[in-house]
């Protein structure tokens, strides 16, 4: 790919590699022999060598340091600072930190009925989005993993919803699922059914929100599954076919067990994402307060953190809530990880 590099550089070398071990490489004597004293030249060479050795030793750290410095600033520091905020009292009026209060904020948050509602909502939306999403994505990937005509076209089409930002997606779905004028309710009425109050009824609102999440991410996950499926050796299918296994059987007993690592990956990442839904519940709200419906019926915990921390400026309580959610996410991710491994191993 880049074969031109070694020879094109041959003429314009500045320092010798310490790895090469020879202090005076052939081919460049004209640099050391001219004018001045031999001594000065040797000193210059030594200096270069030393610089080169430092170059070799320090460069890796230099290359990774921008990431770690910036990350420490905008990633690690906030992470620890949330913990600090969570165990202190905050005087809202003057932005000053109050006393150390231990776990008071955690207790307050756990007793707050709005927080509990938000936790239930978060789980409900998460389940309604992740489970159908993974199932559908695997099926779509199975369909794509055939010798299709126009492969690129199909793959790109599947990804189309991914370019629509969540904020735009909520507005679109908000119109489709509008309680009065929405098309979905229009069709339901046409069928002789009652319209559903998508923005008012708790579980229906969760379903609408989960629908938006699924819409945006199913194709994306299908492509990830597809990539894993394409790595499955084709002769396995041929052998199975000779043994009389049909397409569906092949999919269940060859493809699924072999894409297990990807399954774990997708389920864990969709857990981390699915438990932090924010844009959809905030913008789906058509009441002015924007706290996930008049009765917080679709307020998620991340939205709770935003309302408490940024709008109401209860830093301690918001941070406690953020930590509780974080611990739940970790717990569920680990649980999912073990469960998925166990289940797929058994089917293998």
């Amino acid at each position, binding site marked *: 790919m880049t074969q031109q*590099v070694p020879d094109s550089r041959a003429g314009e070398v500045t320092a010798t590699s310490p790895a090469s071990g020879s202090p005076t490489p052939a081919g460049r004597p004209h640099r050391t022999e001219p004018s001045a004293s031999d001594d000065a030249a040797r000193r210059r060479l030594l200096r270069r060598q030393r610089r080169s050795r430092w170059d070799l030793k320090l460069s*890796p750290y230099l*290359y990774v340091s921008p990431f770690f410095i910036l990350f420490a600033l905008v990633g690690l520091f906030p*992470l620890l600072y949330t913990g600090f905020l969570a165990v202190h009292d905050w005087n809202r009026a003057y932005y000053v930190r109050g006393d150390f209060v231990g776990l008071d904020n955690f207790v307050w948050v756990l007793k707050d009925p709005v927080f509990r509602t938000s936790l239930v909502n978060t789980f409900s939306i998460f389940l309604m989005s992740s489970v159908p999403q993974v199932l559908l994505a695997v099926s779509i990937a199975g369909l794509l993993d055939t010798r299709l005509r126009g492969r690129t076209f199909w793959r790109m089409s599947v*990804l189309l919803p991914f370019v629509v930002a969540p904020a735009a997606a909520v507005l679109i779905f908000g119109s489709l699922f509008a309680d009065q004028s929405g098309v979905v309710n229009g069709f339901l009425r046409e069928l002789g059914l009652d319209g559903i109050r998508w923005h008012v009824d708790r579980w229906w609102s969760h379903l609408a929100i989960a629908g938006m999440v699924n819409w945006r991410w199913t194709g994306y996950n299908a492509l990830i599954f597809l990539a894993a499926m394409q790595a499955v050796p084709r002769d396995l299918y041929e052998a199975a076919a000779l043994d009389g296994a049909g397409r569906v059987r092949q999919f269940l007993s060859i493809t699924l067990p072999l894409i297990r690592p990807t399954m774990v990956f997708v389920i864990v990442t969709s857990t981390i994402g699915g438990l932090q839904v924010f844009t959809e519940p905030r913008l789906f709200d058509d009441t002015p307060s924007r706290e996930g419906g008049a009765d917080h019926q679709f307020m998620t915990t991340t939205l709770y953190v935003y309302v408490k921390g940024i709008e109401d400026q209860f830093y301690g309580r918001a941070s406690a809530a953020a930590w509780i959610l974080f611990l739940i996410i970790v717990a569920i991710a680990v649980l999912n990880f073990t469960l998925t491994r166990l289940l797929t191993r058994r089917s293998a």
Partner: protein
Amino acid sequence: MATIDRRPGFLVYGLLAAFVLGSALPLYWSFVIGSHTKAEAEQFPPPILPGGHFWENARKVLDTIDFWQALANSLIVSTACAVSVVFFSTLAGYAFAKLRFRGSSVLMGFVVLTMAVPVQLAMVPLFILMRDYRLLDTLAAVALPTLVTAFGVFFMRQYLVDAVPDELIEAARMDGCTMLRTFWTVAVPAARPAMAILFLFTFMQVWTDYMWPLVALDTKNTLQTALDALAVTGQGQTTDHALVLAGAGMSTLPLLLLFVLAGRQLVTGIMQGAVKG
């Protein structure tokens, strides 16, 4: 013979086509409703073809929100983050993939671990940080948290492990290239495809983000927070869906254009990241 041939039949095409049409429908819907008047949009059965009122609605959108300013802000922030992420991730990814140094595996483990840290955890402290340094309501505040990403470092490392042969690096070193020069002349050319994909990913990620600009900005808007304002103004007695959806469609057009131009790379990138990740 026929069992070995995996050429799909009508059923496969039919199911795929149904799925694709279903996923395209909401987007199509936003353009249909966005190009009708408010009254037409509220009819049932709804219009199924685009109407002739898009420019009218678009002008209303431009009157309601500062669309062009929001578009410029989104462009600036997304580009700044994408350039920064690509640069620092390539540098760090190269070091992790190809250079031996003490502590590299521990540091890399740390990078992978940080990928799993949820963003909501940092919302409040980042807000306080930006407020204390008087950065709130600036574009810098929007860009800062995404100047580097753990995913970027991980992605570039995975790519560079295979993309750059060790012999090539050694050869460059033998010829006396400094480390930086080796990086520049050997690693960067080989990394170019992955850099393009990472640029695309980061750009889209920052562009579509709603939560952080909402926290960091007050009077200014990115496209996403501007939509927020649009939805609120639409909430009179009855929402003007024609206006709201015209805005949603307009805000989606830039990424749609990007998708038409670079969708193929995006697909490749997602599939590559998956196999190696």
